[in-house]
């Protein structure tokens, strides 16, 4: 497959997944902000989310304070934010348009219809009570795209690069979401934390029910961290995402007759670390330090994948 095609597929999947992740983040922050408004620090949630989305420097260049209105506009529709939902869908479609031939019709239509819808968005589509519906729509569109890819793509290289992009982006997102809230999970504050905050974190990765299924116990910070980092059963956990990344890279290497490089080593190491790691050790190292490492290694892995397959 053409390197450029691989690049487009990888990034269209990353941008699509990112749009969904931003929607998840905003939905949770919106909920939390409503609760913490009573406690008098509404801005804290939006500050945290802006940090998690990695674009806060750009935000503060444009806006003075992280009000709900400014943060929501920035994260959803601001063209100056390359990770806004609108920008993500545009970038995803631009990449898709360059590789129409590598996509199935269902995938293209999922992206193209979303983009057409966003282009003609009503001015109040993200305001007030419409916000929740809009965020739900975004998640539906992302799910539709993932479903279309999953159900219609031949299991050759194009599919693998799409899957790689989705999983790598998802791993990055889960690590960031946990990291901005890492203070919530320190064992010493067990019990003192607002239950609602834990619930919100779980909700952001659609894991409220999953937690109950896996643990059948009351929420605890340690267990939530374990679920989201180490449990392979949770499809958005770091362990699950990095296992998928490593397996996909392996499949590409095997498909090319045994062509492997640095990206395979980095990925294999991450997979093993998450597969055999223990939550006690992670807390001993420091959750924040661990997650920062994960975010860095995930970015490195992305660069290695591009170096080996795209920019050779």
């Amino acid at each position, binding site marked *: 497959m053409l*390197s*450029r095609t*691989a*690049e487009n597929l990888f990034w269209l999947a990353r941008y699509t997944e990112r749009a969904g992740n931003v929607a998840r983040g905003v939905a949770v922050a919106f909920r939390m902000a409503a609760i913490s408004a009573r406690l008098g620090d509404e801005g804290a949630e939006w500050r945290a989310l802006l940090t998690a989305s990695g674009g806060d420097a750009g935000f503060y260049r444009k806006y003075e304070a992280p009000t709900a209105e400014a943060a929501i506009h920035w994260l959803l529709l601001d063209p100056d934010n390359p990770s806004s939902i609108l920008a993500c869908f545009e970038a995803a479609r631009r990449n898709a348009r*360059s590789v129409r*031939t590598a996509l199935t*019709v269902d995938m*293209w239509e999922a992206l193209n219809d979303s983009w057409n819808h966003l282009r003609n968005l009503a001015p109040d589509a993200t305001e007030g009570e419409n916000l929740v519906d809009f965020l739900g729509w975004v998640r539906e569109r992302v799910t539709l795209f993932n479903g279309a890819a999953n159900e219609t793509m031949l299991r050759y290289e194009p599919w693998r690069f799409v899957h790689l992009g989705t999983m790598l982006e998802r791993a990055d997102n889960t690590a960031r979401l946990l990291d901005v809230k890492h203070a919530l999970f320190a064992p010493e504050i067990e019990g003192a934390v607002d239950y609602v905050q834990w619930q919100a974190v779980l909700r952001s990765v659609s894991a409220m029910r999953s937690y109950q299924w896996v643990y059948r116990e009351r929420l605890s910070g340690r267990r939530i961290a374990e679920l989201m980092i180490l449990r392979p059963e949770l499809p958005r956990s770091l362990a699950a995402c990095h296992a998928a990344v490593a397996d996909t890279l392996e499949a590409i290497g095997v498909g090319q007759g045994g062509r492997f490089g640095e990206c395979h080593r980095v990925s294999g190491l991450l997979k093993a670390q998450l597969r055999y790691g223990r939550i006690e050790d992670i807390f001993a190292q420091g959750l924040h330090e661990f997650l920062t490492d994960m975010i860095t290694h995930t970015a490195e892995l992305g660069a290695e994948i*591009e170096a080996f397959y795209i920019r*050779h």
Partner: protein
Amino acid sequence: MRAEDGVRAAYAEIERWLRATPREQLDRKRREAELLFRRIGITFAVYGEGGDPERLIPFDIIPRIIARSEWDRLSVGLRQRVQALNAFLADVYGPQEILKAGRIPSALVLENEGFHKALVGVRPPGGVYTHISGIDMVRTGPDDFYVLEDNCRTPSGVSYMLENREAMLRLFPKLFARHRIAPVSRYPEELLETLKAVAPARAGEHPTVAILTPGPYNSAYYEHCFLADEMGVEVVEGADLCVQDRVVYMRTTAGPKRVDVLYRRIDDEFLDPDAFRPDSLVGVPGLMEAYRAGNVALANAPGGGIADDKAVYPYVPEMVRFYLGEEPILQNVPTFLCEREEDRKYVLSNLDKLVVKLAKGSGGYGMLIGPHATKGQREEFHARILAKPGDYIAQPTLALSTCPTVVEQGIAPRHVDLRPFVLSGKEIRIVPGGLTRVALKDGSLVVNSSQGGGTKDTWVLEDEGPGEAAAQGQSQSQGQSQGQIQGQSQSQGQGQGQSQGKGQAQTASLGC
């Protein structure tokens, strides 16, 4: 005249269907068609003009019909013409016998900017120059087909031939059941066969074919992807290719892969910054060296522009006689070259009857339609022709055929032209059909999509029917009206230079 019988047989069924279909239903089908095109993403990219950059070319749901017997005559003529054009190119880049024989003025060819001196003596693989030709035609009577112009460089529009048919099949399945319509869906397969047939010998039995596109900002980008998809080949941009030791490779996830045939949709001057324009951002440095070395086939071959030059056009019938020893089947529109003194005199004193075109123009721009022009416009062209006679040609008006078309007020006749696509590899292949362009404005003769033209599905009907001219005078179905020749090349060489900068942060240039 057969015209007295009314609607010609081939249109009879369509006529009945139109009469039986309420206007609201036609409108609904039109909207459906538009939605379909928008959804599939068959758009025509127009950047830098403001407004929606991704536009739809209006699609008319009433098909244009050609009877099989007419088509057969037409295709014999097309075959003959394209053979002659190919022979001409092989000759002017070889022994130049037609010039030595004095059948075409040497200066017209050798000093033409479409003629690449550097390519004299370079024989393309298989000896084929114009692998894909789009011959723009109009008809003026039952057996009178005129060629408006030949497109021997990178003619586009074939995706509309295929997608219009798909759209019609989805919108009007019952109509198809009542007609025996020659299928066009084999075109991509035929194209691939044609391209494979001209691969360099060393490529073996399974040559690697790719389509070279200027990129997503090119107006015909959809078509490039569509054809690549249908043929199962890669669509590559300049940056995806590199040349090493005069061999062309494409960058793949598994490393460099050798390319044998490039169906290039980039104009000559942008192909290779080392050989032509150094500022080309869409080309491949070293590509021409690889081509000269015989390591890659380019379709169409560079230098083909000399064959479709408007000033060379009047000599195409002469080419047919010279190379094939036959009389031309397709007619040329009488053309006056303003460079020639006696032609110029005639043109200047008959501006009110003639169409004046730029010899190098395309897209329907920069022309004078004498009978519709104001006195001031004619005076302006008078002065322009005197200032630069070599830039202008002129042609008389023709009685163009029309085809019923859905318009605001109902169904009305509109002028049409036809661009069939002729493939030349080891043999010549023509898929029965083509791109029908229709001038949507009343009385207009301009079919160019950039000037408000639309397209129609083109049906070659297997059932025998009388000539199209039989419909003369029928306002609801077929009519004819006086008009001038229109329809310049829709799409040769649109904006190649603009495809730099994908605006994507992760894109970096690659080293070979």
